[in-house]
């Protein structure tokens, strides 16, 4: 009876049955130990005995270290290794500090027109020890205006992006999770948005409003930029919803709401953070462009784009009027891009092929 066919049960019978579940003596040691480090060691010990092959691979000591780290510590550790990203982060922190404490840092008021700020011929003054970066056409201190301009750029960059993000996450989740006709509708709408010359749309939107302020700009940029965010979130949700842990949650009897908040949203945090930092760079630039053509922040509130626009006719005689605001925009955009790239690599080490 036990010949021939009965013998081909490889790898099952010869192995001793493990001790009954929950009876392993090594776990009893752990019960008395302190829950954190003691538990970790016990697990590692148990595992080394269960899977000798893995332990022989030499991962064990390292595993003990990894066990003390959370996801965020791990991300920060990888982010820190990227020198450019860290430099970008430092610049952003500096910008935020400058924007928040503008009244304390700025040497002059951004709106005061100094008599000494204009030459005898009424020309703007070049950089000097009094006006570090020179003055503008009306004799106002350029440095002070740049510092206050950082407020506008950052506030619009962050808020407009937050608004775009809000719309994008909602549309993306609805389209990606619930699928069906709504998905088709939303995704075709994003296609249309992406195909549309968004700058023209923004011009149309903001010029139809009599007196565009910061809030109008935030809404306009948000409406213009929801489409790319929707696409990213939609794609992410599509892949996450097919993962087995989501199936398991459905099988457990979780409601859609619970699946979305507990199982899908936490996995969207990484792409959301990455695309926000990259998106802020675009938004800052977009605000500058709108302000440049006079549809952004209205004078006398200083904005970098608007300052370039004002100084442009004088770029030969007073190049600092264009140069310094331009540098500010470039550095800000660069910093956010560097941080965004760094975060993307930190969240997904496998994608690091540069």
């Amino acid at each position: 009876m036990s010949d021939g066919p009965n013998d081909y049960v490889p790898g099952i019978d010869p192995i001793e049955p493990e001790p009954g579940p929950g009876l392993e003596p090594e776990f009893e040691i752990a019960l008395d130990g302190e829950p954190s480090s003691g538990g970790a060691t016990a697990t590692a010990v148990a595992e080394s005995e269960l899977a000798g092959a893995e332990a022989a691979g030499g991962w064990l000591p390292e595993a003990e270290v990894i066990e003390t780290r959370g996801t965020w510590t791990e991300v920060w550790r990888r982010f820190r290794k990227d020198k450019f990203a860290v430099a970008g982060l430092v610049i952003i922190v500096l910008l935020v500090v400058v924007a928040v404490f503008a009244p304390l840092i700025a040497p002059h008021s951004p709106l005061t027109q100094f008599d000494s700020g204009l030459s005898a011929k009424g020309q703007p003054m070049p950089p000097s020890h009094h006006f570090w970066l020179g003055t503008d056409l009306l004799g106002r201190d350029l440095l002070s205006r740049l510092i206050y301009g950082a407020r506008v750029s950052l506030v619009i960059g962050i808020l407009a992006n937050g608004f775009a993000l809000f719309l994008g996450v909602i549309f993306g989740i609805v389209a990606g999770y619930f699928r069906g006709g709504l998905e088709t509708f939303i995704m075709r709408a994003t296609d249309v948005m992406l195909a549309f010359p968004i700058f023209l749309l923004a011009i149309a939107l903001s010029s139809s409003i009599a007196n565009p302020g910061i809030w109008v700009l935030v809404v306009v940029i948000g409406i213009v930029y929801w489409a790319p965010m929707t696409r990213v979130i939609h794609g992410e949700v599509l892949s996450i919803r097919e993962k087995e842990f989501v199936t398991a949650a459905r099988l457990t009897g979780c409601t859609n709401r619970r699946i979305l908040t507990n199982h899908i949203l936490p996995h969207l945090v990484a792409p959301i953070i990455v695309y926000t930092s990259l998106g802020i760079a675009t938004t800052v630039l977009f605000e500058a462009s709108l302000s440049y053509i006079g549809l952004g922040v209205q004078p006398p509130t200083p904005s970098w784009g608007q300052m370039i626009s004002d100084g442009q006719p004088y770029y030969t005689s007073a190049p600092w009027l264009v140069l310094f605001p331009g540098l500010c925009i470039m550095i800000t955009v660069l910093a956010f891009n560097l941080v965004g790239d760094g975060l993307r690599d930190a969240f997904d080490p496998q994608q690091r092929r540069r």
Partner: protein
Amino acid sequence: MSARADTIPLGATGGGGATLVSIDGLTVHFPITSGVIVQRKIGAVRAVDGLSFDVMRGETLGLVGESGCGKSTTGRAILQLEKLTAGHVLYEGADLARLRGGALRRQRRRMQMIFQDPYASLNSRMTLGHIVGEPLLVHKLRTRDERVGRVKELLNLVGINPNTVNRYPHEFSGGQRQRIGIARALAVEPNFIVCDEPISALDVSIRAQIINLLQELQRRFGLTYLFIAHDLSVVRHISDRVAVMYLGRIVELAANHELYGEPLHPYTQALLSAVPIPDPVVEERRRPVVLAGDVPSPASPPPGCHFHTRCPAAQDGLCDVDDPVLREIKPGHFAACHLVTASDYPKIRSVEDRAAAAHTAAAFTAAVDTGADGDTDAHEGEA
């Protein structure tokens, strides 16, 4: 083997135990669509094509077949994770396919699943306590204070240190993660568990542990398993009865020892002969049945018997025209083949002999599976 040999195959004829899950005409077709905005249905992948079988209370029903034959879809459809195109799944007499929303969610307590990939089946952003405790929370099975104790109890049950409730899945190995997945499935105290290739993704060294754990849990809690796998030896080890699938249909269903000892369907015979025997002498002597060609696309399955395109014994005008039904050839032994009938049964060997004669060309290398060899010989001697 001895462990299995004394186990009475449950419900082989429907009399051994009460039916727990009754599957009737289960059909899952995935539409193939074309068109950008207006989607037109241009065809369907017939993943599961009219399955009917019963799962008896307390048994392990093995479900085997090649990749893409619809095994996993069957498991998912039984648990209502796929929308049924047609058919019914009766769980203790209640049709699951008709349940919606809250009623279905409540019924989910009774049926759980153990997944293939332990790395994908646990939410990496949740701690063990939350993963295993979520089912308790969703079904309000314990009060808040009792929950932690219950989670620890469940972890202990599957051999995971209960003090690790605050750890994340990435801190565990594949085998440990699979145990955690099992603990989650057990949390709702189910009767019926679909094991969807629960050990395929694991290290060989860990497989036996998980199998043993599953068997231990079955004994303790009287669980019923539908065990999906492509590894025939594992299915043989754990199952009471085995169903063989080919292209969305069951071609043979029999008690474990019956099926492995005396496979009736040509496909089962080929499948079994593909399992290497760890004995060089036997391995050298036997000539495996090598099937020609590939599995046809489930989007356009061949007419008649789905297997006729590759069957060594296929007969023109019969197998490519008529659809064989799953018939009881012997008590408890079902096969879907025109050439295997109850009256025909003693001459099973001759099916292949006929085939060998008819197809002497190089279309295939037909022979008799050594596994079936001994038994059929013995049977012929009796006849």
